[in-house]
């Protein structure tokens, strides 16, 4: 077991982790944050996307112990206009990809407040959604971007 300290959704936290535990499992099982989802566990689906030091990554492909000294933000730590637009425009259906999708979209808008449709589609290429066909997700991200520019 290794003791790590990190900033998790703005709060200082200490966790004791086995080294082989992924950040995803550490968040879900040790930190009690189950909003981050496990869709494939091998970096192909994006459901486990979190921000580490502001950058989106697959928490299934990072060891929990590597988060020592870093700042991690999960869906539970995000309040963003994206969320209301996803609700309003049908950007979520089953909701399983949604936390990762919103974290990724937030990272995208943080970097580029006025993305084109192509840039949005490029940005969320690593987030699989099997319900929506992406049309309404793209619309929701565009609407959130527009709202933020107002």
């Amino acid at each position, binding site marked *: 077991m290794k003791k790590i300290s990190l900033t998790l959704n703005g709060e200082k936290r200490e966790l004791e982790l086995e080294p082989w535990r992924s950040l995803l499992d550490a968040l879900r099982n040790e930190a009690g944050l189950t909003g981050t989802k496990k869709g*494939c566990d091998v970096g192909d689906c994006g459901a486990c996307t979190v921000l580490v030091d502001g950058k989106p990554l697959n928490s299934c492909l990072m060891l929990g112990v590597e988060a020592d000294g870093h700042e991690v933000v999960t869906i539970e730590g995000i309040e963003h206009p994206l969320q209301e637009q996803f609700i309003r425009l*049908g950007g979520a259906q089953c909701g399983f990809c949604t936390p990762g999708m919103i974290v990724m979209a937030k990272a995208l808008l943080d970097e580029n407040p006025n993305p084109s449709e192509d840039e949005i589609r490029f940005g969320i290429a690593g987030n699989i959604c099997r319900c929506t*066909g992406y049309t309404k997700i793209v619309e929701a991200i565009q609407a959130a971007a527009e709202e933020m520019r107002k």
Partner: protein
Amino acid sequence: MSKLAVVGESQRRPDMPGKVSGRAQYAGDLSLPGMLHAKTKRSNVAHARIKRIDATRALAYDGVKAVLTHHDVPRVLHYGSPHPRSASVTRDQYILDSKVRYWGESVAVVAAVSEEIAEEALDLIEVEYEELPALLSVDQALSSSVKIHDLRNDNLVVDPVTVRRGDVEEGFGEADVILEGTYTMGRPTPAYMEPNVCVSQWSEERLTMWISTQTPFMVRGILAEVLGLPLTKVRVLVDHMGGGFGAKQDLFQSEFLCALLAKKTGRPVRMEFTRKETFLGGRSRHPGTVWLKQGFRSDGTITARQARITFNSGAYGSHAPGVTAVGTTALTSLYRCDNVLLEGSAVYTNTPIAGAYRGYGVVQTYYALDIQMDEAAEKLGMDPAELKLRNAVREGDLSPSGHPIVGHGLEDCIRRGILETDWKKRNRPHLASSEKPLRRGWGMGCEMHGSSAYPGIKEQGNATVRMNDDGTAQLFTGTTGLGTGAHTALAQVVAEELGLRFEDVSVVHGDTDVVPWDIGAFASHTTYMGGRAAQMAAAEVKKRMLAIAAEALEASAQDLEVRQGIVSVKGSDRRISVRDAVGPKLGLPTPQLIASATYKPTKSYSFAAHFVEVQVDTETGQIDVLQVIPVHEIGRVIHPVAAAGQIEGGIQQGIGHMLTEDYVIDPQTGRSLNAGFVDYKMPLSMDMPPIRTILLETAPDPGGPFGAKGVGEDPIIAIGPAIANAVYNAIGVRFRHYPITPEDVLNGLRQKEKH
């Protein structure tokens, strides 16, 4: 159609805030004190008897609490998907058997204090197989003397289905043109985002199971049956679930094993599939072939239709009987034909199990039918959309279920699509248009699909509605929320019927101890059947509420109307809020306002025509879908955003079927070659084209709530032939299979060059 107050508006879905914030609870999010983790050992042969299986070393491994092999579990023959009173499914599975019938079948499970330890212990289970000849194709299975199951003396799942109307010989005799072709379908899988997961806990001899399923009552029923318990001793809980698309109405053996491990260890046990296991132990659509022959008069009238359909069921029957029946009978319709002879069969092979998947057999048979219509149009010198319009089923025609079609939904969809796309200009042959490698083309495809599985399955909709003493109401429904927004639609129906605001109605669901029985969320059932039952229960509550209000208003109940939570006497200013009407009077509670209803359906069909533009790179063979214009006639639209969302998602899956998705089984060994998202390729954000969805409400169904019909199945069906037809329009090569790979395109172009 008349405008309604709550129905028809895209109300704010109550399930959404939890989903966008990470608060929504899925079965896999549950953690219980002392919970163990279970893992499955899967076979690495396709067909074998287990000579010896020894778990001694695994049991001795530090941290392992229990191991189960076929020696340790009750041997009860059971249905893979337990539709009650239905011939749709097959009784051919054991919890664990002494025989394995496909590569990846479970042979043992381990429960341990951590997932890592459980996984490590799998290596310590020793299995000796006596291999049997693996029958990996339908042809092998049909010609072999080896039997995959002992239930019959052949490898058919059930007796073939034959559907006969009129006289095909006579019909072909009247034809000016006859077309004949064989169409072959690959093995797409639903690939829901949430891997199968369940958590079992026993207390006082009573089992509680949290599970990701479309059919909690069927899970309850089969667990009780196989484990020998009364229904009062099994409680199944489903709150949110991460997609199912049909497949999660089966049982995956993990449910029994999880429950048995929990019982044996006296601790809660959690069992979650890896993504790979969702392929190995999951369900696919049925691969198959359709031989189809049709006769046409020179004016385009269809004189006869004959088909032989063969589905590959994989190692177990699952939904093969239902899929075969529905897919086969579907060919009686869509395009009118009086003389029809159809034979459908399903065959066991030593490959992964095919099961229920959105479009249930119809995806395959309408793919053949709609492509052949385009082929016929070319021969007849007609426009394909015009030919389909001319033959489209309509008011009064016999539907596949034998019920008369209501309205002109299909014709309306085709006409609207022709208008929206300026079709006559679009659908010109592009064949010789260019020397450039990129060619574009347009195509269209049609479909129809029944709302609910009735009469194939004798289902019903149930609902209970209770009005609280503050004038709010609660709907108790056994339907499951797959994520389509169905519970929102049901709340809209109840609010509309009761005259309440949408916000004043909530939905109670997901606990088999509490809610009325429901067969499950599949077959475009929930809004149609669950919705109509909810409407009926709400109507009864409304009647009683109005009786109370009538007393307060000193009026007759017939003279009252209720809107936005206010009851008023028609044509006067006398009014009372629902809240005041049903609230306590002088400290005395009003009588409980609660009513239940059961709806036994008629049958209704939804319709669609999809119009598609594709681009083909003639040097690489790559096909891109550039745009899709789906036109759907679904009766009364309850929640436009949710309905369109389902359509767009279905199109995504359908594009995948056509171009990139195929779960590949090694034809020599039966091993799966792409059990993961790297090589099982679903279209992603950059692959998906813009979709402009058009909803029509021109043929409402008298049986559905406020005239609503189903929408879930439809979108995945029409997109397929639309794409194949568009590819033909672009490059002049006719494909009669899916997926159409880049290699197929280049080979097709080469063949065409030769001719």
